[in-house]
């Protein structure tokens, strides 16, 4: 067992302070509608972050998620519009397409044995090309409201909680448990810590790598369904810049970009922090151009706290 607590605690503290400040500073922060909006908005990033955490723990990275999201979105949206796809088949379609894209990444990374950032930079471009080809110059409008079950509206909530967020939390919990207690989950940490040694220890490195990228792809598929549900109009720019948002959530959550260390719980909190900051800027009536500045500052605060903690531990 590794000692993970730390960044999570810092993040919970930061979030608590931020929420309290916002609660007192505005009349509306704790309004159900606001919290629901924050949760529904961060759900896609959280869902992908669950997979991205596993990928980064293996010392990899997947920068193609934004493009992959675009591919899944256009495929699913077109199918919804042109055929009478029901909710579950639509989601399965999304998971399937996402899974295939993820598996392509996984196979290339695992067998290519070059750093994942190179491969996924490549597929980032290729997937975007594929998406544009499917778009064929037209955005997809008039998508039936079926996926609003995962969107931000009333259809997307039960007991006041957005379904997408519930899914995100369930998946995060599942991934957390897997990475913490399943042997193959522990192997992800070993691979990220020292891949050659992992091979010598008899760990099926290739299989695990293909696995985490495929899972990330599947989760991208699910996130795509949530985004369609939240928007309803699917344009060509879908997913641009998403990879940075997801990576930001993961690293704010304390997962080491060098691999071997991290937790999904941190990622969930990281995504929540970014979502809170974004929404807070509007709630406070500050200029929306400043949002990015605050996100930057919070990234540094979170990581700075982690560094100080780590340094103190080394000192002892």
């Amino acid at each position, binding site marked *: *067992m590794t*000692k993970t607590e730390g960044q999570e605690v810092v993040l919970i503290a930061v979030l608590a302070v931020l929420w309290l400040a916002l609660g007192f500073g505005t009349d509306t922060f704790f309004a159900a509608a606001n919290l629901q909006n924050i949760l529904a908005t961060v759900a896609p990033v959280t869902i992908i972050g669950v997979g991205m955490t596993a990928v980064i723990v293996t010392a990899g990275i997947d920068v193609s998620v934004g493009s992959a999201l675009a591919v899944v979105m256009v495929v699913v949206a077109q199918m919804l519009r042109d055929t009478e796809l029901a909710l579950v088949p639509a989601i399965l379609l999304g998971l399937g397409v996402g899974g295939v894209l993820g598996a392509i990444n996984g196979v290339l990374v695992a067998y290519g044995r070059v750093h994942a950032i190179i491969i996924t930079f490549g597929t980032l471009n290729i997937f975007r090309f594929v998406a544009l080809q499917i778009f064929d110059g037209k955005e997809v409008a008039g998508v039936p409201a079926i996926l609003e079950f995962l969107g931000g509206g009333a259809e997307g909530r039960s007991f006041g909680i957005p379904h997408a967020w519930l899914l995100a939390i369930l998946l995060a919990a599942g991934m957390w448990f897997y990475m913490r207690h399943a*042997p193959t989950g522990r192997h992800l940490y070993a691979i990220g810590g*020292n891949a050659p*040694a992992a091979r010598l220890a*008899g760990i099926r490195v290739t299989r695990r790598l293909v696995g985490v990228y495929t899972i990330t792809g599947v989760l991208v598929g699910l996130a795509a369904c949530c985004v369609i549900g939240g928007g309803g109009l699917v344009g060509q720019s879908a997913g641009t810049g998403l990879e940075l948002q997801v990576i930001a959530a993961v690293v704010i959550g304390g997962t080491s970009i060098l691999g071997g260390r991290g937790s999904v719980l941190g990622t969930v909190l990281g995504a929540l922090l970014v979502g809170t900051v974004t929404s807070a800027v509007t709630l406070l009536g500050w200029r929306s151009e400043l949002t990015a500045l605050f996100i930057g500052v919070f990234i540094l605060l979170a990581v700075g706290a982690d560094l100080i903690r780590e340094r103190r531990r080394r000192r002892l």
Partner: protein
Amino acid sequence: MTTTTDALLTLTGIRKHYGGVYALQGVDFEVRPGEVHGLVGANGAGKSTLIKIVSGAEKADEGTASLNGEALGDTVKALRAGIATVYQDPQLFGELTVAENVFVGRELRRNYLVDWREQQRRATELLTSLGLSEKLAGQRVADLSVAEQQLVSVAKALAHEARILILDEPSAILTDREIETLFTAIRTLKDRGVGIIYVSHRLDELAQITDRVTVLRDGKVVASEPTKDLTVRQIAELMVGHAINGTTAEAGAPQGEPVLRVEDLNRRNRFTNVSLEVRPGEIVSLFGLVGSGTGSIARAIYGVEPADSGTVRTGQTAMLPGDRSRQGVFATKTVGFNISIASLKGLWLKRKQERRTAIEFIERMQIKTPGPNALIATLSGGNQQKVVLARQLVERPEVLVLEEPTQGVDVGAKEEIHGLVRDIVGQGTAVLLVSSDLPEVMSLAEKILVVRGGRITARFDRGAAQADVLAAAAGDE
């Protein structure tokens, strides 16, 4: 060599090359059940390569390898077949705990999940049997000293039922007491019929533990005899291929004021009130068992690790780090790059001068390499160590800190390195030698400062009895 039918592991005609380097050139080798088979050879003779072929980490170009008549495969197959390996550098995972490392890849399970409690229990058992504190089981491996890590990797090899246990220089950084514990463990396995391959540069150990010794030279087997038929001297000569002259320890001639003065150096939980002086032309040794804190003291004196209080006054200083591959070698770079990097002056690179210096040191230190443009990664461990040492000498430092300068280095290279150290001391450099190799300390050092629990507990001059020094270090007054 005779082929016996009762061999457990049989290798025949193994060849392996890396680019232009022939690591193994037709090696026959076998291990019988219950046999401890010593494998020795100079640096670069091919020992590690042979072992990697057995463990599945490398594939032979030619030849056959079989365990009980079954062909060997990749690492996973080898592990399943019961081949457990302790590699020369511990292959561990720093962010995982000791217990996890012991079982990684072959976790103990309950209901498909990791059985944490059972792992913890078994790991604690194994650690205690190797003389390690049971508290270690829950610690992060990154927080352990190198020696502790080495023992953890032994524990990892012992964690599962093995038919062949391979130990690639497990003793290089262990103290005698730890080695004795290790030997006890080995003898237990031997009695159970496990075949053991034991690689070591400490030739005196061979008589204690091995039944049979195979000597490799330049990728070929030059002898394979029962241990009792060979003397240490014969083995050494077989390794290097010529007779070795006995070395005479010529005392240095310390002169003048100390150039290194350390006063009351402290670091919490590591070392306390360390004071010492080294004069030009003098070798002072910090001797301590592993974990005593000698390494931390040396690194704090050199300034790469912090100290909480105290003063260090020193002239121009260089340090040979203790962990060659992690702290010494620029692996993807050339030999020339590796030699010159610490002595660059001014704005522009002086490439001709750099080349000249590199060639000079390659010759002076008899580094086996095609030339300064060869990649250092293609050199054997001992030759890499010489390159790293050469880097410290280019500048002719006033003070030289040496941490385990001959760890994992064969006898020939070891003598050469000792000679080099004496040379530079003769030229007036002050040397602080940190070593857990007692004979080395005894033969080189002018003064021996024994460190126990982070404190200097005793001081000896040259000529003290080896037993006294060891007793002081071990703490059994």
